[in-house]
């Protein structure tokens, strides 16, 4: 069978399929659906220094081939995550965990990153400079190359684990932001976070989601994500995790061809809780059908 293994910063993954942050909680609850150890990794729910309820409801709206969300980083705060959530995950899962670190200022990113660095559970720190659903901070760091680089450098200085920066697509030139993060010491990149989108109720004329503009995801945004992964992989030398509308094994092959070392599956988990294991099962079959012997052999082939 074709080889679907991959690596991220020297960490071996049995396959490239990772549920994206915010679509899989802290992982352990999904163990009631299937053995989550089949996953390539798990990106944990976005965590901040302090507990957050997030935004008022309605937080969700539907669009053509996608959805809007405005959860707004609901989480119990990093101490509670480490004390209460991660032990539950470790009990049922031994694979790669990726902590997702969100915040509203550089000190907070550093604080939360250090906590995850000191805990044993997560092997990669994913720093989210691209959350569109909070008023201050979040995306502001991801839309400026300088600010993204500053967060990267500050976190890198204080932690030992590999640091991956999760980038915003709501920019004129994502490759410029990616390069700035690489130069600031990022070990890898994750892209794309959600686009900014909106829906308005045609009868009432008011935005459907409480905060108006918010995160837009799903298969609808895949062409944008793939274009950006392609553009970033053209210029950086660090590993890229591709994310944005991935729902099938073919989608995985598109992103790996664009240069991604692994992928994250987001919205599709919400529609089909078995999306990830299905893709993992399909991937080697589809590769065999296409005459592809290993993921590694096709990584970035769209550029040649």
């Amino acid at each position, binding site marked *: 069978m074709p080889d679907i293994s991959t690596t991220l910063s020297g960490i071996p993954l049995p396959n490239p399929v990772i549920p994206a942050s*915010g*679509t*899989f*909680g802290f992982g352990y*609850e*999904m163990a*009631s*659906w299937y053995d989550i150890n089949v996953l390539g990794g798990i990106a944990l*729910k976005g965590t901040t220094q302090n507990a957050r*309820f*997030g935004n*008022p*409801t*309605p*937080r*969700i*709206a*539907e*669009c*053509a*081939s*996608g*959805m809007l*969300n405005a*959860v707004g980083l*609901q989480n119990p705060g990093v101490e509670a995550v480490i004390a209460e959530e991660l032990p539950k995950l470790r009990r049922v899962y031994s694979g790669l965990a990726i902590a997702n670190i969100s915040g509203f200022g550089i000190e907070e990113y550093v604080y939360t990153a250090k906590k995850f660095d000191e805990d044993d559970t997560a092997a990669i720190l994913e720093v989210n400079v691209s959350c569109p659903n909070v008023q201050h901070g979040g995306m502001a760091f991801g839309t400026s190359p300088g600010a993204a680089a500053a967060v990267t450098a500050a976190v890198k200085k204080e932690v030992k684990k590999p640091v991956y920066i999760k980038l915003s697509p709501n920019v004129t030139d994502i490759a410029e932001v990616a390069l700035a993060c690489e130069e600031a010491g990022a070990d890898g990149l994750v892209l794309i976070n959600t686009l900014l989108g909106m829906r308005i109720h045609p009868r009432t004329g008011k935005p459907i989601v409480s905060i108006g503009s918010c995160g837009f995801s*799903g*298969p609808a945004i895949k062409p944008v994500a793939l274009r950006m992964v392609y553009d970033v992989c053209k210029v950086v030398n660090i590993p890229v995790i591709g994310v944005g509308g991935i729902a099938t094994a073919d989608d995985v092959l598109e992103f790996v061809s664009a240069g991604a070392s692994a992928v994250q599956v987001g*919205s599709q*988990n*919400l*529609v*089909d*809780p*078995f999306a990830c294991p299905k893709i993992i099962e399909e991937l080697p079959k589809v590769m065999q059908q296409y005459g592809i012997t290993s993921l590694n052999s096709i990584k970035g082939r769209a550029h040649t």
Partner: protein
Amino acid sequence: MTKNAIYTIETNQPIANDVFAMRLAGPTGALVAPGQFVNILLNGFYLRRPISVCDWDEAGMLLIYKILGKGTAQMATMQPGQTLNLLTGLGNGFTVSAATGKPTVLVGGGVGVPPLFSLAKQLITAGNIPEVVLGFRSSGDVFYAEEFAKLGCKVHLATEDGTAGTKGFVTTALQDMAYDYYYTCGPNAMLQAVHALSAQKGAAGQLSFEERMGCGFGACMGCSCHTQVGPKRVCVDGPVFTSEEVVFA
């Protein structure tokens, strides 16, 4: 334990204005309490549609749904023999035993009525015959008043325009009733009014909430709400919350 399976439509008929009853054949082992719901995948729509389960047996389940948008409008056009992909056994459902030995009332508004039906059956099986208060906008919207009566429940009907039963809201009918425990499902404003009135009467109960959901099984935090014991997800921690834990904004 939640499950994913394919169901075959046996019947899909209108029973009131824009309200349809759909009987589905397929596994129901995942349903363990009245008030749970299913999440339905529809061709051409990205997110599933959550619909509460009205009743079920070993062979299938009954869903009662209202046309509220394009997804449910499409559901209403589906024919017997067509299939649907469901996540089932979602949500906590009502705790039947909590009402044991207490004069009990069920209060339903509009599409909040269906989950109370299997609840009524289970309460009766447990020896507790509840009174039932049903609220609708108008006479054309009324459904299941007779079905509850056939179970042996005393049914109090209220319509906003007075075209059937008492003119007014469920609370108009509820005001003069005596009960120690209640179960209610309906629009948020109704839940809040029932909660307040019942608190005056010293009655506790369980309230089933509606919220726009992403997944329906706890993964996305799309349907979070505040409670007395911190944030909860309507889809997995609810949709049923006790009168002690609910918080109205």
